[in-house]
């Protein structure tokens, strides 16, 4: 039986009493030990969902249950750190604020990987160095659930690749569940086994990557045959000349005499969903039966 690390039901968050909804009607269950990519355009509600999962905000409606403060680590988008402390003092802070959990060795390894001077003040660090320190602080806590908001945005490609490697190795070694947001899918592709697509504050796609991909087909055929698509759940159709390209969720066998079928790439799949805000939600919650949230 897999435990659940995040469970949300009818989750909604609104800023202020008359503000716009940042997040609305989100229900999901994320099993333990998964690496989940949280994707969506800017303003989709990614940060709001992570903030709620980290327990830093209270939902306007619905409920969210996630790992407790002791067992989760959260790195906010702007990598907040105390500018007046040094790198060494920041790590000492991790030790002081997480008694009994702190793993100095893990944190030290990540910091040393970036050739960070322990005596350097945080305010003097570059964006990439801050990210590295923030990640060291998060991983040093030995979290069961790691919430990362746009973690790699400030890094150059080399550092990004290297840090992602460290992150994934550490997560795999300790069975850490990770939720990582980005508006650049390629940043996360290959590293994640779960996908969560948000758009306009709503959940659009959620599930294991393989399942999500397997449930969709990219069909190419004559524009005149578009009537035959009604048998399936159509996400998006595009007509180029006399050709019709459709992303569908087949609900039965596809007529292969009319349609050429192909497995969509993750990027094609996500772009198709983002271009068609009216497309039905894909979230086979049934596949993630769980009994309560791991505390």
């Amino acid at each position, binding site marked *: 039986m897999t435990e659940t690390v995040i469970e949300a039901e009818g989750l909604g968050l609104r800023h202020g009493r008359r503000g716009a909804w940042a997040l609305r009607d989100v229900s999901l269950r994320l099993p333990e030990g998964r690496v989940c990519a949280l994707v969506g355009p800017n303003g989709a509600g990614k940060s709001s969902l992570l903030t709620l999962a980290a327990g*830093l905000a209270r939902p306007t409606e619905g409920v969210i249950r996630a790992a407790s*403060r002791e067992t989760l680590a959260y790195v*906010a988008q*702007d990598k*907040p750190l*105390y500018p007046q402390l040094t790198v060494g003092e920041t790590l000492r802070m991790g030790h*002081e*604020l997480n008694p*009994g959990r702190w793993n100095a060795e893990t944190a030290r390894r990540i910091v040393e990987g970036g050739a960070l001077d322990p005596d350097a003040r945080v305010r003097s660090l570059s964006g990439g160095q801050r990210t590295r320190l923030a990640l060291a602080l998060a991983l040093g*806590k030995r979290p069961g659930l790691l919430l990362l908001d746009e973690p790699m945005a400030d890094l150059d490609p080399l550092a990004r690749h290297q840090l992602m490697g460290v992150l994934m190795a550490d997560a795999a070694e300790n069975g850490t569940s990770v939720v990582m947001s980005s508006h650049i899918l390629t940043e996360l592709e290959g590293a994640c086994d779960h996908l969560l697509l948000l758009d306009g504050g709503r959940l659009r796609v959620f599930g294991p990557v393989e399942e999500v991909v397997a449930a969709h087909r990219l069909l190419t055929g004559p524009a005149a045959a578009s009537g035959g698509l009604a048998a399936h759940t159509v996400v998006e159709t595009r007509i180029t000349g006399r050709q019709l390209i459709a992303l569908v969720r087949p609900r039965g066998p596809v007529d292969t005499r009319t349609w050429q079928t192909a497995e969509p790439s993750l990027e094609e799949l996500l772009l198709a969903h983002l271009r068609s805000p009216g497309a039905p939600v894909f979230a086979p919650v049934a596949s993630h039966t769980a009994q309560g949230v791991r505390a």
Partner: protein
Amino acid sequence: MSTLALKGPSWVAVRQHRRVLRAVAGAVTAGLVAVVVLRLWANSPDATGRYVTGPNHGYDLLRLCVQYAGAGLRFLPPLVGAFVAGPMLAREMESGTWRLALTQSTTPRAWLGSKVLVAASVTVLGSAALVGVYRLGWARVSGTYWLYWHDQGPYEASGPVLVASCLLGVAVGALVGQLIRRTLAAMAVTGLVTGLVLLALGSVRWSFLAVETASMPLSGSTAQLLPPSAYLTDAGVLTTTGERLPEYTCFAWDPEVGACKAVTNVTARYADFHPLSHYWPTQLLESGILLALTAALLCAAFRLLRARRG
């Protein structure tokens, strides 16, 4: 400032603000050195080897410094409050570091608690030390014009009222710093609120204890009515029916006391005053009120945190 014995969030709070802690220690030390030097100068022979008989520059300077220090220390509580509200709390909100602090294993309560504890400890030690330094300087010049025990300045700077006022600042800061998430605005509001509360309390402090009243026949003068160092709050004349009239009622007839008596029925002089013995009870009563306010505000601050962060 040793940080060796500190643990957990208190260590973090001290580390974050160690420059200010050093500055506080430095200010107290500098004040102490200045007072000692000025007192020695005020008592010393001048450069020519003679004891000063005429103008004593050391004494004058000491007096001036004590006057300014008394006026300056009245601004200490709003300043302490502004620091707690701004750099200690609102800045965490403004710069987003609260999200770092509140996702560690320690509770939000411990987070706010450690800040309040560090601020309160430093405040008590620092302001008590400043009271000591102030008294050391004031002792040489007290009881002179502007520097009586009841004067504004010496009264606030020379006793536990200063310590309690600074603690009130900490509590106002702990509440306002959470309500207003902008560093400068939180500092301004805290300073203003603390200042207004202290002004309001200062305006009623001489009503805490009942004044003593003395009266004497009209022929004497008010000055003879008062014990030494008493704080005169009201003086005037009394009619035969016991009605109080302003002191100037008999000015026109003075010194023909009998004429005044005949026209206005005035028979005696009276004076309301606080004797010197009221200094400590008033200080303690005012401190008690301030500490009660402090406790109520801290309670509100922690309830607010609980309501918001669980």
